[in-house]
């Protein structure tokens, strides 16, 4: 029983990172209409910003979540201006080649900069990198452990999600983004500055990935190769949620987080399998319900 609860708790806590990574990618795909294969590399950049700021400047990674978000927002705007802009509305293959190229470039650049060291983790660990042990129903045998860091990260991720939905609903740029997503022609005729909306949406998209990256550097060891797996997972979650369904992304992230945690625990040699399960589920979703599992 406590294993089961532990599995759910771990899955839920993990899903926060998936939520903001994937909502970021969903903004690129749905609003900017860019299939961004380099999304995970922006996450990786965020992770290294968090790591370096902590090791060199002593900045708490929780603060770096915001800082990395801002830095990578501008990086995203620049990337959009010099490259993405040129492949909008051209055949998708152009986008795929471009963004795949950016992915390889950033990945290898990170590899060169990282040198021989295979992976990086925060040293010393921040004070909140410990676990709470909670005894259910006052019985010491039914105890589960909650990592304080993961819990904080989950709450921050939820905060970011709520903030983002607030922006989409209530601000001019948020409304512009929704308008462009729902009807680009309609957006132009009411006076939305579509070009500027694309630029900012892309910045927000990769900033979210970077924030997720900083969260990851707190709880796992990071490396230059970490990005691509998250790109794939984020695409998988988008497919599960249904294209253009941001709220569905939340539920799909939660589902995936829990399934991943369950497979990692219950299947022998499970941690190796848990990544693969993502794609097995996507395959099933695409066959059974290709429009996505969650109502818009």
């Amino acid at each position, binding site marked *: 029983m406590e294993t089961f609860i532990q599995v759910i708790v771990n899955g839920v806590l993990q899903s926060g990172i998936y939520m903001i990574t994937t909502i970021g990618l969903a903004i690129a795909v749905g609003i900017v209409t860019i299939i961004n294969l380099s999304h995970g590399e922006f996450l990786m950049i965020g992770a290294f910003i968090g790591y370096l700021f902590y090791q060199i400047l002593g900045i708490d990674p929780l603060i770096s979540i915001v800082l990395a978000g801002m830095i990578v927002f501008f990086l995203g705007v620049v990337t959009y201006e010099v490259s993405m802009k040129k492949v909008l509305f051209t055949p998708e293959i152009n986008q795929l080649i471009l963004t795949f190229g950016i992915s390889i470039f950033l990945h290898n650049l990170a590899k060169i900069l990282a040198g021989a060291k295979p992976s990086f983790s925060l040293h010393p660990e921040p004070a909140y990198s410990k676990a709470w042990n909670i005894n259910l129903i006052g019985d010491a045998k039914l105890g589960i452990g909650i990592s304080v860091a993961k819990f904080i990260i989950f709450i921050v991720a939820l905060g970011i999600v709520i903030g983002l939905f607030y922006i989409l609903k209530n601000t001019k740029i948020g409304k512009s983004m*929704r308008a462009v997503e729902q009807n680009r022609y309609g957006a132009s*005729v009411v006076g*939305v500055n579509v070009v500027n909306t694309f630029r900012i949406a892309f910045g927000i998209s990769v900033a979210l990935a970077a924030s997720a990256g900083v969260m990851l550097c707190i709880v796992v060891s990071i490396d230059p190769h970490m990005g691509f797996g998250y790109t794939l997972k984020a695409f998988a979650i988008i497919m599960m949620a249904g294209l253009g369904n941001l709220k569905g992304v939340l539920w799909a992230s939660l589902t995936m987080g829990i399934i991943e945690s369950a497979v990692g625990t219950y299947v022998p040699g499970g941690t190796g399998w848990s990544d693969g399960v993502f794609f097995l589920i996507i395959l099933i979703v695409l066959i059974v319900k290709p429009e996505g599992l969650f109502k818009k």
Partner: protein
Amino acid sequence: MLELKNIDAYYGLVQALWDISIKVEKQTIVSIVGANGAGKTTIMRIISGIIKSKKGQVFFDGEDITNKESHKIVNRGIAHVPEGRQIFPHMSVYENLEMGAIFRDEAKSVMADTIDYVYTLFPRLKERTKQLAGTMSGGERQMLAIGRALMAKPKLLLIDEPSLGLAPSLVIDVFKAVKEVLKQGVTVLLVEQNVQKSLKLASRGYVLDNGRITLSGTGKELLENPHMKAAYLGH
């Protein structure tokens, strides 16, 4: 108020408009009629900055607005009711209307009043204020598209094929609304395939054929023109 001078336009390499010159006087309805594919919608898109012209100029209130970005053109007071409505399907009626106002500085501050005005013009929209626009009928969407454009407090309203796909009773409603808008001091440029109805309403009309203006005159003149009668009015 609006003047197009010798406009040429292309879609890629294909020329769609040749030497289009049109004049719209203040507080009148001007109608452009012509067959499908004649280039009527292209003219509207040139004016509102959705596509760029290769040659020629567009003047609005004495200023050259040729090939300006569409959001700047909206801000100057030209609102476009595009062909096919182009409403925002996952936003409510109210939100759609709001979208019409918030991108024009002059319109934003008086939004509440304009919404009341749109609701009196189209009581149907008031009843459905919270409904998602994507779930509405064609006629309601057309009302919403016109209402959304009015939210910008435009000086000039471009209306593209408002009657397309509507039941006859709704067509009457829509044309009534257009007349009502004119009374409020808004100038209207109307593109319609319903030649008879739109020329009756218009003080001036242009006939577009294969991207060229072949005929122009007052609405009445055009309705009585023998060539028009034969080609468009089925007499």
